[in-house]
């Protein structure tokens, strides 16, 4: 067992745990009791790997970005999760959890979604595997992410508006948890990020760890070397970062860089940087860093990227950051837009706004890079869903 992984109490250092009402205790305990056996079983691995290859299109490529390499003075590789089915890494976790749900005899799936990527991934997995699917989405997000709402509905999912709070991702998560409390017997809650009560953060990290599993052998294939010097990923709840770091965390020479959303700036009051500007607290069942008032009321974050617009962060990242194993940087809306623009023009890849935050770390790290350094940046998703924002911010004349 890695010293960096969750312990038998569901804790990462003092972070994590399962702060759920007694109504959810049996569900969470039940999941805790079986998830490792299921994930490690030959049957599950065979089925999961088959779907990852034949259905999702894995392995996703590791691409040597020669022009970015020149610009930033190091060898830059891109892990192309944007090429996975449904356009982002979210599908890895959605299919994995749906298979676990089936093994546990649950036939009704619920999920939360912000921008709609996890909702689409879950609706896709449910269509594929024949499960009933209900997705909670903040009423505000439903209005601003209409194409993804249509995709989910076309896939047969019921999209239910979360009407509480500010009617965004945090509130959709609350509604999904309330649904789970109300339907403990037949329902499995597929959480979209490495957040929530134990065992969710660990389960999601394990399912997403396929990203770094592939990175490792692909990197060796490219370079003949065993390990890169840096792995960089964006972080909201932290699932693509968890997947990208998972198989490198015990390799102390590999620097792990997580990039959170600074929004309009770390000190603007309009930010989603829960590690730079948050404090310790409890949200959605785990102890972690989060944005809140001095009275412990959870506040609404802000980022141009809907997928990073979450007041908390997965507990594993809070822990890795605190002990110094993971370095956390923050990119503003503007820095992310510039990075997206650069990648598009230089390498012909339009990234999701979330992934653009990871790319925005490159100019920040440029002075530290040695010419021989090898850097892997995870492109967690593609930018189709963000075209309205890109047009508005980068090409207003096209509006």
């Amino acid at each position: 067992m890695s010293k960096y992984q969750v312990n038998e109490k569901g804790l990462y250092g003092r972070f994590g745990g399962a702060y759920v009402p007694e109504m959810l205790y049996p569900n969470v305990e039940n999941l805790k009791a079986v998830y490792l056996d299921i994930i490690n079983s030959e049957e599950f691995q065979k089925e999961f790997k088959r779907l990852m290859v034949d259905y999702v299109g894995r392995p996703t490529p590791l691409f040597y970005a020669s022009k970015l390499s020149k610009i930033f003075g190091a060898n830059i590789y891109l892990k192309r999760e944007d090429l996975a089915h449904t356009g982002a890494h979210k599908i890895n976790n959605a299919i994995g959890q749906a298979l676990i749900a089936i093994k546990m005899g649950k036939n009704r799936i619920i999920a939360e979604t912000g921008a709609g990527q996890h909702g689409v991934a879950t609706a896709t997995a449910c269509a594929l595997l024949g499960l009933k699917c209900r997705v909670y989405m903040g009423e505000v997000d439903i209005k601003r992410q209409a194409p993804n709402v249509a995709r989910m509905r076309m896939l047969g999912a019921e999209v239910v508006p979360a009407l509480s709070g500010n009617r965004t991702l945090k509130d959709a998560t609350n509604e999904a948890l309330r649904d789970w409390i109300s339907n403990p017997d037949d329902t499995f809650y597929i959480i979209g990020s490495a957040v929530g009560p134990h065992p969710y953060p660990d389960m999601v990290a394990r399912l997403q760890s396929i990203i770094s599993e592939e990175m490792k052998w692909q990197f060796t294939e490219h370079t003949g070397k065993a390990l890169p010097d840096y792995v960089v990923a964006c972080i909201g709840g932290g699932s693509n970062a968890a997947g990208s770091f998972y198989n490198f965390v015990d390799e102390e020479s590999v620097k792990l860089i997580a990039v959170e959303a600074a929004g309009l700036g770390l000190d603007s009051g309009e930010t989603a940087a829960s590690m730079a500007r948050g404090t310790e607290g409890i949200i959605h069942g785990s102890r972690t860093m989060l944005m809140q008032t001095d009275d412990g009321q959870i506040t609404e974050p802000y980022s141009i990227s809907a997928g990073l617009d979450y007041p908390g962060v997965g507990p594993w990242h809070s822990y890795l950051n605190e002990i110094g194993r993971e370095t956390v940087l923050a990119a503003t809306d503007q820095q992310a837009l510039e990075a997206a623009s650069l990648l598009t023009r230089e390498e012909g890849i339009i990234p999701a706004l979330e992934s653009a935050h990871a790319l925005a770390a490159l100019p920040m790290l440029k002075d530290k890079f040695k010419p021989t350094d090898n850097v892997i940046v995870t492109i967690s998703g593609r930018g189709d869903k963000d075209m309205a924002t890109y047009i508005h911010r980068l090409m207003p004349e096209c509006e």
Partner: protein
Amino acid sequence: MKNRIDEMFEKKQNLLSIYFTAGFPKLEDTMPVLRGLEKSGVDFVEIGMPFSDPLADGPVIQLASIDALNNGMCIKKLMEQIKEMRKEITMPVILMGYINPVMHYGIEKFAQDAESAGVDGVILPDLPFDEYVEKYKEMFDSHKLHFIPLIAPQSPDERIRHIDSLAEGFIYTVASAGITGNIKTSVDYRTAYFERIRNLKLRNKAVIGFGIKDNASYKHACEHADGAIIGTAFVNYVKENGTSEEAIKKFVGSIR
């Protein structure tokens, strides 16, 4: 350690408890509501400490919580409001809320302030019972506070016995899988569950909450347990009818 809650159970049966959200409808309603409830003959109360993300609550208490927070309610304010309540309030008082705001207030300070205000119990649904026992029980005991645990229909007998063996005050029996104000199971289902609890012959008293809203549901709960807690229905009522003594008496009169 015994307090007002235990004395109440020694003397009374078919207990009626009311929950209200502090700071709702108005910031300064806490003491008027407490007075109104005591004069109406309610046996004990839960004062809700509003939280931005109340996971176990339905829309009515969620909205009341948001209003209360917008009115300026916080634990510090509440502690000031109830500081001298024991000059006039004799019934047991329980504070109910979520762990995050309490953690930020400081758990030790919270327990101290609650004790000096004369609070008797605390309900924090998202603080796991085992973590309470491990980290805070000693502290709460030293401040004469009972930590009231919840149990639910899906709680296995073994889990209920474990909780009962370590709990004090009473056990809050959640009537049905669900959130406050939204109960969809049948009376027969609930009866079977309440009887399962009764047959466990727990050392603690059991009080039923969630979905208790009128005379019929109150009476049904009292047939199978030691009392009942009404929350959502009362929060809705004061929203419509205000918090005058007369209005509160009318509500309580309609239940008993």
